[in-house]
């Protein structure tokens, strides 16, 4: 039995939520307050909404793919600062990229945050979300838009018809 006081993080040998500023970097708060590419798209070629069962938050991603490239990206929904910032940043990271490249961006980001050690840290503004790794409860928030993008693109890869 333990006696005396201890520090949770030290005892567990892990850093959990140790530093708030590591999570809420300036650029995140900026994306959250001034989200880029927010709103619905008129005629998306791909579209998918996902929700976070914990809080009921929803993020929907609309895409227009032209000639195998992401010509446009929009997102809508509501969520915490992390999920909104992540959805906002994802647009910059994929518009103009080929579908394969965009999938790589999203997949790499999800892998990085879920602890795959072989994945490089994300590039661009998304790099600001690297700190989420140390806040496992928020990983679902940070990856919501990325998962929606991947599923939207994947869905189109399946044969048409009811499934």
């Amino acid at each position, binding site marked *: *039995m333990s006696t005396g006081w201890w520090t*949770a*993080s030290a005892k567990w040998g892990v850093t959990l939520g*140790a530093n708030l500023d590591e999570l*809420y970097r300036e650029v995140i708060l900026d994306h959250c307050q001034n989200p880029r590419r927010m709103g619905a798209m008129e005629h998306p070629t791909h579209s998918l909404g996902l929700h976070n069962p*914990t*809080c*009921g*938050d929803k993020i929907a991603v609309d895409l227009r793919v032209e000639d195998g490239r992401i010509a446009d990206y929009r997102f809508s929904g509501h969520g915490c600062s992390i999920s909104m910032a992540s959805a906002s940043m994802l647009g910059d990271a994929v518009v103009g990229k080929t579908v394969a490249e965009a999938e790589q961006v999203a997949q790499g980001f999800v892998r990085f945050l879920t602890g795959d050690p072989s994945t490089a840290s994300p590039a661009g503004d998304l790099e600001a979300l690297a700190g989420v790794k140390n806040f496992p409860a*928020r990983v679902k928030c940070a990856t919501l838009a990325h998962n929606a993008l991947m599923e939207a693109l994947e869905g189109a890869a399946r044969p048409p018809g009811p499934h």
Partner: protein
Amino acid sequence: MTTTPATTAPPTWAAVAQAFPALRQTVNGHRLVYLDSAATSLKPQAVIDAVVEYYADYPSNVHRSVHTLAGRATEAYEAARARVAAFVGADAQSLVFTRGTTEGLNLVASGWARRHLRPGDEILLTPAEHHSNLVPWQQVAKATGARLVFAPLTADGRLTAEAIRASFTSRTRLAAVAHVSNVLGTENPIRELVALAHRQDAVVVVDGAQSAPHLPVSVAALGVDFFAFSAHKMCGPTGIGALYGRPERLREADPLLFGGEMIAEVDQEHATWADVPYRFEGGTPHVAGAIGWGAAVAFLERLGMDHIAAHSRALAMDAAARLAALPRVSVYGPAGGRQAVVAFNYDGVHPHDVAQVLDSQGIAVRAGHHCAQPLMAALSIQSSVRASFYLYNTREDVDRLVDGLREVGRYFGR
């Protein structure tokens, strides 16, 4: 069989807190302030010791063996059943051990209601029910053709006796209602519900997950047919709970799980069931859980449930009033008559972000829909922050919460 021994003076709460080893830690550099007891409570040393004693000294299966260790385990397991039953004013024979409130409610839904409800029958609920006291009834409705009816809440979130009366019809065959709401902190008028229901032989099922930890409960005095509750929210171990059932109702129910100790006789094609409550306890039971729960109940009884109720209510009322006075904070639920729970939102900051900033100050609260999505919809929100109080909390914890929310505003510039 009194649920609360006559205690004279209330205990010294700061001393009570010392019994909980988890409170001896700092989180992110601050003394832990644990305000998430409605999700699960901390455990006192006495409960941990009882669990350890079982695992270390007599880790045996129950009921089926002649040897000394098994005898000791069986005695301790059945003594725990009697103790937990007495805690809610019931006999041991009417108490079924389950994994928790959710299994208890599902047992009534699948085992009793599916067998007894008919097309057109009505199941009375409220819009504030926990998913565990809603989704099982949706399933019963689908399987039997019964209909769900929701008694309306008042604008400030109360369930009144009038609303119950107005929603009751001659087709109402079953009412399933939380004793205390896990979001609004309201206590529902169970006695009035029972009086109305039993006039027409309707069955009353009470979700006691949030009342058993906090209020002196007597199922006999309330007159309910079924009452489900969980050990882990009342200082006990995880993985164990109980369903009280009036014996005649229990006997009308089908078991949920088949095999092991629930059986009387079996041949290749047929089987007969043991008597209640064992009929509903298929498989090796959670012996350590039951024994630890017995110790938890002893711990609570020694302090006195009336004192515990007064203490957590006072903290919650104080917190609700002080939070409501903060700029940009909205508190949900009625101004008066609140049990240990305060749900709120901070305008312009998402609940997850509020909880995160509080956590950075060592304050543990919960953010989410609290398994009450229909209630969230009724409140026109997606989610909220919830601070919940228990016997180990103090006034200082409320101060820390209020200060913590000021820091939330500062951090997000609102």
